[in-house]
C-alpha cells in the first residue's frame, strides 16, 4: 500500500452563489513526496485546502484521505497551517500549544513532551511561558508551525509556510520538512514562490481561475513543456540565428544569447549549423523552462 495515495481529490467543485471557486478539480498526493499546490491569488487554492481539511464540504466530488472519506477522525491525522494564521494574543505559548494539541486528541502528558521537544528544536525554549505579544513575527511563525505538527500528522498541509521567515529560518524549515518526507509523511504546500517550489516539490499542481492547468511530477511537467530554449555564447556565425526555420527569436544579453527554437526544431541541428559556419562556441546549453516561466505563461495565457 506504499504507493496508494494518501490524498485523493476527485471531481471536486465548490460554488459560492454565482461564483465557482473550484471547478471539477482532481489530483492525488502520494506519501513520502512533497506536493506543490501552485496558482495565483484567487485561483481557488485556499478553498480547495479548506475542503481537504474538512472546514467546508465540496458541492460535488469527493475527497478521500488514506483511502477513507473525510471525517472528524481524519482531521486528527492532518496538520494544517493556514495562510491567515493566528495565536491567542494574551496567552502563554505553552498553554496555546497544549490547547491546540488537545483539539487534535493528543493526551496532556504526550503533548507536554512534544511541546518541549519542538520548542527546543526551534530554539524557543525560553519563550515557553511568554505571551504571544512578546514574540517577534518570525518566532510566532515557528510557534504556529509547532502547533501544526504536535499531533504528528500523516498529512501536512502548509499554506505559504515560508512567508515572513528570514532566509536562515527558511533553510531551517526546509530541513524540518525534509525529515517529515523521509518518515513517509505526505507534505502538501501552496506557495507563490516558484523558486522554493522548484527546489522542494516532487509533484506540482498548477490551478488558475478555479481549474487545473497542469499537474504531475516536476520532471514530467517540465519535459512536457518542452525545451526550446538555448543559452549560447559564441563568436562569429550570427547569420545562422537568422534562419527562421530553426530560430524564432534570439535575444542578446550581456554575455550570452537566449535562443528560442521553433517548435519541433532539433537543438542538435542548430549546434551542427553553428559549427559548420565556423563559429567559436564557448557555451551551448539547453535550458529547462523554470517553474516561474511556466507559471507566468500558463497564468497569463
Amino acid at each position, binding site marked *: 500500500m506504499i504507493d496508494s495515495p494518501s490524498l485523493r481529490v476527485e471531481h471536486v467543485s465548490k460554488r459560492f452563489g454565482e461564483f465557482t471557486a473550484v471547478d471539477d478539480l482532481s489530483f492525488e498526493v502520494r506519501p513520502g513526496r512533497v506536493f506543490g499546490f501552485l496558482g495565483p491569488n484567487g485561483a481557488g487554492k485556499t478553498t480547495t485546502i479548506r475542503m481537504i481539511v474538512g472546514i467546508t464540504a465540496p458541492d460535488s466530488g469527493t475527497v478521500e484521505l488514506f483511502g477513507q472519506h473525510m471525517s*472528524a477522525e481524519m482531521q*486528527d491525522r492532518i496538520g494544517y497551517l493556514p495562510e*491567515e494564521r493566528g495565536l*491567542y494574543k494574551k496567552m502563554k505559548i505553552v*498553554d496555546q500549544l497544549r490547547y491546540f494539541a488537545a483539539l487534535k486528541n493528543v493526551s496532556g502528558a504526550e503533548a507536554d513532551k512534544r511541546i518541549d521537544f519542538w520548542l527546543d528544536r526551534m530554539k524557543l525554549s525560553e519563550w515557553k511561558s511568554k505571551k504571544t505579544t512578546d514574540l517577534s513575527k518570525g518566532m510566532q511563525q515557528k510557534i504556529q508551525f509547532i502547533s501544526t505538527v504536535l499531533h504528528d500528522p500523516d498529512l501536512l498541509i502548509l499554506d505559504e509556510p515560508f512567508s515572513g521567515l528570514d532566509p536562515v529560518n527558511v533553510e531551517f524549515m526546509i530541513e524540518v520538512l525534509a525529515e517529515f518526507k523521509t518518515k513517509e509523511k505526505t507534505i502538501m504546500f501552496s506557495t507563490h514562490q516558484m523558486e522554493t517550489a522548484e527546489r522542494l516539490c516532487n509533484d506540482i499542481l498548477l490551478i488558475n481561475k478555479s481549474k487545473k492547468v497542469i499537474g504531475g511530477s516536476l520532471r514530467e511537467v517540465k519535459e512536457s513543456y518542452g525545451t526550446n530554449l538555448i543559452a549560447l555564447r559564441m563568436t562569429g556565425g550570427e547569420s545562422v540565428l537568422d534562419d527562421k526555420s530553426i530560430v524564432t527569436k534570439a535575444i542578446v544579453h550581456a554575455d550570452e544569447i537566449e535562443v528560442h527554437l521553433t517548435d519541433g526544431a532539433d537543438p542538435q541541428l542548430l549546434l551542427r549549423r553553428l559549427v559548420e559556419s565556423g563559429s567559436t562556441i564557448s557555451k551551448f546549453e539547453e535550458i529547462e523552462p523554470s517553474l516561474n516561466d511556466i507559471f507566468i505563461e500558463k497564468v497569463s495565457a
Partner: protein
Amino acid sequence: MRKFLAVVKHEYKKIVLKWAFLIGTLLLPLIASLFAVVPAIIFSLKGEPTRIAIVDASGKIAPRIERNLTAEKIAAKAEKSARDSMSNISLTQQDQIKRGSEQMGSFFVFSNFDPAGRSLDDIRGDLMGKISQGVLDGYLIVPENYGSPDAIFEFRSRKAGDFVSGGSFRDAVNDAVRSQRLADANISEKTLRELSQNVNFDEKGLDEKGAERDSDGVMAASFVIGLMIYITLAIYGQAIMAAVVEEKETRIAEILFSSARPFTLMLGKLVGVGLAGLTQLGIWIGSVLVILAVIASQTGMAELLPKMPVITPLMVVFFFVFFILGYFIYASIFALIGSIVTTVQEGGQFAFPPIMLMLIGFYFSFVVIRDPNSSLSFWVSIAPFLAPITMPVRILAEMPPFWQIALSVLVNGAAIAGLVWLAARVYRTGMLMYGKRATIPEVWKWIRAS
C-alpha cells in the same frame, strides 16, 4: 468528547485566571460594603460651626430654638426619622446616627442680638456688616406676630446651601414656634403628641396557604436576585462575544475548524464561559451567606434575619436552572453577533438589542414583585428572553404552580435549541469571512446553506 472538554477548559481558564475576574469577583462585594460604610464616614466629618444671630423681640422663641438644637435633641430626632424610613435599624447604625448628630449639634453657635428698639432695616444693616466681616454666618429675625399664620421668619445665611444644618435649623425653628403657639393656647406638648400619634400599621403579605410573610424582605431580595442575574448575563454574554471576535480577528478560527466541528467548538465555548460565570456567581452568593452568618452570630442583628424571605433548596435549584437558561439564550445571541462583526468595538454597537431585552426582563421583574399572580406576571415569566430574569423573581415573591415553571423551562429550552442551532450556523460561515461585516441578507444565506 476530549475536544469538547478541551474547549470548555480553555474558555474557563481564559476568564477565571485573569486579573479582571479576580478583581471583579472581589470588587462587587467590596463596593457593596463600601456603600454601607462611606456615608457614615462622610457623616462623621466635622464642619465649621454655624454662627447665627437671633433677633427676637418677644424673647420667647429664641431660647426654645436653642434648646431644640442641643446635641441630644438632634440625635433623638435623627434616630426617629431613620426609624421611620427603615423598617429595621441595627445597633451599629443607631450608634452611627447618634454620633453623627451629636457632632451636628455642635454645628450651631447662637448669639442673641438685642434689637433695643431700633428699626428692622437698621438691625439688618448692622447684621449684614457683621456677616461680611466674617464674624457671623447668618441671622434669623423672629417677627413679633409669630403666632399669626402669615408671620414671616427671615433667615439669611451664607451657608444657605448647606442642607444638613439648614434643614435641621428650619425644623428647630418650626418646632420652637409650634411649641410656643401651643403654650399660648394652653395646650401641653404631651397632649398634642398623644393626639397626633400615628396608628400602628401592621402590614404583612399572605401566601396562598395563609402564612404571613414580610413584603419588604421579598421586595429587596427579589430586586437583588433580578439584578444579579441581569449583571451576570450581561457580563458573560459579552465575554462570549469577545472570545468569538478574538478568534475571528486573529484567524485562529481556521485552525480550530480544521480540528473540531464548529458545533463542538461553539458549545464548548458556551459551557466554559458559563462555568466561569457560575463560579463568580457562586463566590458572590457564598460571600453573602457568610456575611449573613456573621451577622446572625451578632446579637444585635439577629432580629434582622427572620425578615429575610425563606429560600428553600428547591428555590435555589430553580434559580440555578433559570440562570442557565438565561445564560444560554443570551450567550448564543452574543456568539452570533460575534461571528458577524469584525472587531470587538463593532460588536459593542450590536450588543444593544440583547442588552435591551435583558433590561426589559429586569423592568418586568418589578411588575412581578408587585403582583406575582397577575396574568401579566404569568406571561412575562413564561416568555422566552424575559423568563430567565422574571421567573426567579416570581418564585421568590410567591412560588407559582409547578406546571408554570415547567412550561417556562420548556419554552425557554426550545428557544435555546433554536438559538444555538442558528448561532452555530452563522458561526461556521461567519468565522471564515474576513474583512467586512456581514449584512443581514448574507447572514440569512449562511443560515439557509446546509
